[in-house]
């Protein structure tokens, strides 16, 4: 079709302006793809940090404890025995179960005091569920029954503590009386999850249970499963609890991380806003291009009308040109985006430029953010660029084609 050929050939006119428009669209696209990759990376890392250092894949707890879990009460706990743990661990798809006792404590270094989260764990079982041990930068995890503690480097720095220092944890027992846990620091932790480094003190589960006067009770059971198996295992656990008449419930990490997921959803709305701005930039670029082209080619439009071209045929010529710009802009944006996202996934972005700790913003990420590939964002954006270019050219192209032929020919 000759009109199509003419539209394509028109792309070679006003090269500088077309190239600028293409690059504006390309950089807007790049910005979106880059942001999308970073946000995707942040989300993935947040979820991974939550699963690997905080909740595991599944948490089992009393439904009433679940409601109050932020307050870390010493009520509605789980009375465990080795048989229960073995039964859960032997379930298909479960690779580890870690009983945890979470309690409020005040850490005292002899001079100062700070509120912390006490975490009583059984090291061997804890290591089957969480990756924390890999990030103990000094010393090691304590053995069961040892009066030792592992704390985060940030907390140590804050309280001016180092390896083998003694600390006191001031706690309230189940009966609401005061008690203390005196422990020696056996390890310093520097994990990718900043929340772990800032305010958690790990102690041996039996030491914590003894100090809190809880017998064999724990706050929850954290479980490691294959990713994606959570729902299936939760279903099996629910059936098993019902059969045994246990008032327990299993929660996936998604439920535990609801606030981070909510933040991620909010980020998606943010991304949609950025996308709207990107598309608006593209639209303005295209409309501007078509209007300027129409003004410059007034005589030519008049000639086309004199030759007997109908308005829709002239509109088509402009639309082909505008869509061509949209396609080139989209391709260039995807190409630049490919390199930008590639860089982010390989080398990441050093958060030290922004203070290094995103936990202040509710995102459990430290040090570096890595991007993720989202191929659907590339194809979605490219298709959208073509559609937006096509649609945004219609009105200015129609305006151009609707010109009075006499006025157009004689530039009146």
């Amino acid at each position, binding site marked *: 079709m000759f009109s199509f050929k*003419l539209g394509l050939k028109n792309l070679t006119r006003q090269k500088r302006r077309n190239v600028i428009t293409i690059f504006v669209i390309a950089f807007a696209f790049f910005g979106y793809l880059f942001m999308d990759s970073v946000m995707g990376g942040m989300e993935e890392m947040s979820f991974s940090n939550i699963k690997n250092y905080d909740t595991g894949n599944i948490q089992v707890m009393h439904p009433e404890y679940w409601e109050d879990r932020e307050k870390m009460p010493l009520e509605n706990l789980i009375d465990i025995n080795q048989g229960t743990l073995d039964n859960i661990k032997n379930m298909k798809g479960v690779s580890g179960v870690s009983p945890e006792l979470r309690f409020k404590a005040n850490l005292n270094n002899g001079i100062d005091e700070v509120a912390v989260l006490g975490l009583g764990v059984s090291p061997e079982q804890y290591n089957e569920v969480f990756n924390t041990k890999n990030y103990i930068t000094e010393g090691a995890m304590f053995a069961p029954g040892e009066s030792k503690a592992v704390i985060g480097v940030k907390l140590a720095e804050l309280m001016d503590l180092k390896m083998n220092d003694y600390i006191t944890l001031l706690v309230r027992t189940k009966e609401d009386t005061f008690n203390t846990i005196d422990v020696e620091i056996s390890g310093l932790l520097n994990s990718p999850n900043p929340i772990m480094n800032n305010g958690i003190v790990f102690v041996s589960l039996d030491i914590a249970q003894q100090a809190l006067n809880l017998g064999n009770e724990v706050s929850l059971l954290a479980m490691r499963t294959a990713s994606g198996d959570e729902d299936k295992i939760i279903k099996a656990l629910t059936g098993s609890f019902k059969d045994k008449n246990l008032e327990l419930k299993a929660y996936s990490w998604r439920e535990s991380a609801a606030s981070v997921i909510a933040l991620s959803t909010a980020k998606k709305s943010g991304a949609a806003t950025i996308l709207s701005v990107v598309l608006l930039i593209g639209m303005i670029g295209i409309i501007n291009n078509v209007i300027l082209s129409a003004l410059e080619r007034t005589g030519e439009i008049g*000639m086309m009308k004199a030759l007997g*071209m109908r308005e829709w045929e002239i509109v088509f010529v402009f639309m082909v040109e505008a869509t061509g710009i949209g396609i080139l802009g989209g391709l260039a944006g995807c190409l630049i985006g490919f390199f930008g996202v590639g860089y982010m996934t390989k080398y990441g972005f050093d958060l030290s430029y922004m203070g290094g700790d995103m936990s202040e913003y509710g995102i459990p990420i430290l040090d570096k953010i890595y991007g993720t590939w989202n191929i659907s964002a590339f194809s979605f954006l490219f298709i959208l660029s073509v559609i937006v270019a096509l649609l945004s050219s219609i009105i200015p192209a129609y305006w151009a084609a609707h010109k009075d032929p006499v006025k157009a020919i004689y530039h009146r």
Partner: protein
Amino acid sequence: MSLLELKDVKKIYQQGKIKVAALRGVDLKVEQGEFSTIFGPSGSGKTTLLNMIGCLDTPTEGEIRLNGNKISDLSRKALAMTRRHNIGFVFQSYNLIPVLTAYENVEFAIRLIDHASEINIKEKVLKILDEVGLKGLENRRPNELSGGEKQRVAIARALVKEPKLVLADEPTANLDSENAIGVVKIMVKMNKELGTTFIFSTHDPMVMEYAHRYINLKDGMISADKRKGVKGV
């Protein structure tokens, strides 16, 4: 039946509150194969008259018939189709498309009416370019052609679809005398060979000499309409 017939054609432009009469009642008949020139001072209505004849504009009053069909009150779409099939235009400023070659500029006009035969189109375009003396320059773009050559491309573009009528609005105004004569000679040749009816406006007496009929327009009215060989011309 005349190819073209105008009856009491008037054109009044509204400029703000003022009405300007560009044509004040033109009666004209043009037969098939005529080679006519419209001349007159600036503002006499030459371009307006050509625009009316060429279906680019519609009269305020009066009737225009092309090949017996009334065209003065057609819709925009119908006017476009009439132009597409029946009328060729040559403009003073060529109005060639700069990104297309000479061949493609001519091809553009015929593609609008002939979608069928690729070979036929190629033959027609090359033939007409040859006839206007542009053989060998088919692949040149307008910026690689002289003013005379550009106008020849415009003539070829007007003629390639074999219209009944070719209208040329001061086709030689931008050309030197040598090129102007060259362009008019081509128009004469096409008129003779193809029998195409030409109506062109001009100020140039040297160009006018080639016409067979002289229509003098003054203040929007035909003040004289003479044919070659008639006393006083």
